[in-house]
């Protein structure tokens, strides 16, 4: 169901949600957008956060022997591309990892739809900024706040005005016009194992792992003991230890590992789960110190290289 709310009504909605959840929001701090506890809807930023708020579901580091958390959290202002990452990851890890699963089930995400295509972003390649899977989805324009609500949360909206406008369709149309989708279809069979692209990337890559950490769909982690704790920490498939065993290493070269990253995103996940493991957020490109562009993996001419 779609509703149209004024700023005051949004504040009202925010208060209702606050009664049942610990509320977090995107806020501007020293020129960067970060997520923190918020008590006032007015300070929630429309801007894309500096980092994807992956930590709401997968903490950067935590003790897996600890009690599985049960807090109910609501998160205002997560961007569609970042939220979409969770829906894609769900297909592999929901119901298996107890921490992810508990947090996923106890967290309400209120995603904000962008009004303008962002620099470098390519979300239209994967459907655009208006999501088909969401809980509460918000698009702000001069008329107010257009809110698309999933059934489960409709009871929060019973006394608000229904939205008959085409605001969401129009924003999708605008994005499709202004941010041309990349030809991703069939990439899973087009990509080439011995493409020169992997060597080209590896000649620049400095193995920092920033692409993994910034990615809203990278879920891999490392487990190791530290004192009494068994720690789980975000891992990076770009690092050489990622596949090391007593029998050796299946990916000794950096080019092997870069290829793995892109095959996971555009071939393996598609084959296993029916979706690409990418949302077009461009965070890995923005954060790469040597300008490796994941879009090149999609647009590269493998046949005639």
């Amino acid at each position, binding site marked *: 169901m779609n509703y149209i709310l004024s700023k005051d009504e949004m504040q009202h909605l925010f208060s209702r949600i606050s009664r049942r959840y610990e509320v977090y929001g995107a806020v501007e701090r020293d020129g960067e957008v970060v997520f923190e506890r918020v008590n006032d809807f007015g300070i929630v930023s429309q801007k894309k956060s500096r980092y994807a708020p992956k930590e709401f579901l997968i903490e950067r580091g935590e003790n897996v022997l600890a009690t599985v958390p049960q807090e109910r959290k609501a998160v205002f202002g997560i961007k569609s591309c970042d939220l979409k990452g969770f829906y894609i990851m769900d297909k592999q890890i929901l119901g298996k990892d107890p921490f992810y699963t508990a947090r996923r089930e106890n967290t309400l995400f209120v995603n904000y739809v962008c009004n303008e295509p962002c620099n470098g972003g390519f979300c239209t390649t994967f459907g655009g900024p208006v999501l088909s899977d969401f809980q509460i989805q918000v698009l702000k324009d001069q008329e107010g706040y257009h809110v698309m609500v999933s059934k489960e949360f409709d009871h929060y909206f019973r006394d608000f005005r229904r939205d008959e406008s085409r605001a969401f369709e129009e924003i999708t149309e605008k994005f499709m016009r202004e941010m041309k989708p990349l030809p991703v279809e069939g990439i899973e069979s087009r990509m080439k194992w011995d493409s020169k692209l992997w060597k080209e990337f590896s000649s620049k890559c400095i193995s920092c792992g920033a692409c993994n950490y910034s990615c809203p769909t990278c879920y891999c982690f*490392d487990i190791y003991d530290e004192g009494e704790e*068994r720690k*789980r920490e975000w891992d990076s498939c770009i690092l050489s230890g990622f596949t090391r065993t007593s029998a050796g290493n299946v990916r000794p070269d950096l080019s092997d590992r870069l290829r793995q990253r892109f095959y996971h995103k555009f071939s393996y996940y598609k084959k296993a789960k029916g979706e690409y493991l990418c949302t077009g957020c461009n965070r890995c490109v923005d954060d790469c110190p040597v300008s490796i562009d994941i879009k090149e993996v999609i647009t590269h001419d493998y046949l005639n290289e």
Partner: protein
Amino acid sequence: MTTSMNEYIPRFLDVKRKVQETGDTYTIVLDETSKAEPGQFFMLSVPGAGEAPISVASGTGRELEFTIRSVGKVTSAIRERDRIGVRGPYGNAWPYDKYENILAIAGGIGIPPVRSLIERMIDKGRGEQLEVLYGARTPEDIVYYSLIDSWSSNMRMRLTVDRGNTTWKGNVGFVTSLIGKSESPRNSAVFIIGPPLMMKNAVAEALKSGFREDRIFLSLERRMECGIGVCGHCNIGHYYVCESGPIFPYSSVKQEPELFL
């Protein structure tokens, strides 16, 4: 899964016995009856050292045993302890129930999951339908030396070593050299486990010897940290070994360039 259950928390079991098998390989017998099927694995752990994926070495319904080569921090720490953290079993089993005859080929420390298979098939009265080929580097590296004799009355087993010594009177040569001489019917299922190069050669030799490609199964080893399909380390192509394996039909993974690495 209910959200309050934490799959990462191991149960702790007493070590009833330890057996030094070879210079670097030992067996631990735990105080539990095994519910695992041959081919499955457990995450074994020592607090402070960490966890390691280890295949079950004993047959279903027998005492839960693991045979471990101490090569790292965790596998060395396990040997020193009287209580071990255990989670599992995880992964799939050798599909021994789907085929009448089985030829199992093990190289090196690939033997424990085959021992589990041997015990299971003997316990089910199917020893005669099983042939095992086992290759070790040297006579000193042969694991389960004392058990092998007791099995031989129930099933066929051939041993070989890469390099013999002055007292060794048996076969010398890679385990793959025994495949052509196998007495198993050529429609047998072929189970292969061992180092990557050995598995690659064993597949080629099995095919050359007339065994059917669609009945070859490989047990793959990859880095595993979670055992439950979420940490992302153990993929072979679009499969996670912990989740879809560790045992794969050869036909489902033969196209993967990383298969025998």
